[in-house]
């Protein structure tokens, strides 16, 4: 059963400095491309981004997923803090609210908190439970501006 004492647990803030090359690398990965010329120029070309109304190159909508993974040593610290069994772990849901853009040179800080934990009985296996952990994160830039709010639901099957 989910360890409900972990509700309210706050993780140490993590900081990630956004590099132009990392944005391009991430965008190429979601575009399944090997060349920067094959993806949206908003992710690689300052002039194109400025023509679209941004002050600089922007990051793709799911880019912030790499902040915690790269800044705080991957998945394992989170998994260990929550006593999650890696083999049973599934990503259930992911939600982002966008309040501003992310640009190269920005220094992003994420603060995550466990906001809910609950169990659901498996439909096909009465007496067996899936365990859900909901984590909310606020990501701010170096000026303290709230840029992304995220909500992740992890499932132990």
């Amino acid at each position: 059963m989910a360890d409900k004492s972990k509700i309210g647990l706050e993780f140490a803030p993590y900081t990630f400095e956004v590099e132009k090359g990392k944005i391009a690398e991430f965008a190429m990965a979601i575009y399944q491309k090997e060349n920067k010329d094959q993806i949206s120029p908003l992710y690689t070309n300052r002039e194109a981004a400025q023509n679209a109304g941004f002050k600089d190159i922007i990051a793709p909508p799911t880019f912030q997923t790499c902040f915690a993974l790269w800044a705080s040593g991957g998945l394992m610290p989170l998994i260990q803090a929550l006593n999650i069994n890696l083999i049973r772990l599934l990503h259930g849901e992911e939600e982002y609210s966008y309040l501003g853009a992310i640009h190269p040179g920005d220094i992003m800080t994420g603060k995550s908190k466990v906001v809910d934990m609950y169990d659901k009985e498996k439909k096909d296996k009465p007496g067996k439970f899936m365990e859900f952990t909901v984590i909310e994160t606020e990501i701010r830039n170096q000026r303290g501006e709230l840029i992304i709010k995220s909500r992740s639901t992890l499932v132990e099957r």
Partner: protein
Amino acid sequence: MAKEIYFEDINIGDAMPTFTSDPLTRTHLVRYAGASGDFNPLHHDETFVTMFGMPRVIAHGMLIMGITSRAITEWIDNKCLKNFKVRFSGMTEPADLSDIENTKARATITVTGNVVKKFAEGGENRIQCDIQAVDALGGVKLTGSFIAALPSK
């Protein structure tokens, strides 16, 4: 890059343009692992997954969400996107290069969506579009929605 779309031009029920990915390969998964920092061996190491009875590695759910985000931003401008959420419902296995013709369907992701709501919020004209990502065999990978604030004429 998307063309400018105006709030007045969108009606409830309108479909977003259908987007179809390239068949996902293990190389795409490795590229995404490096880009994102998600090195869970479930996504690249077959000697790991076979210990747990799985026949092959599976794609990162967040890669499928990323592909879905591309589908969205090829229709609406990045700056219009206010909220994007998904529920992951099925795993995606990559195509086998040794048998690409018979395995590419399970690894080819199509994203579709329909506008379900038009509303005003925060002084903006917004739309909600429900979306899904499905493989070429009909397997649903994720369902979700996004909210966009659109300019008016």
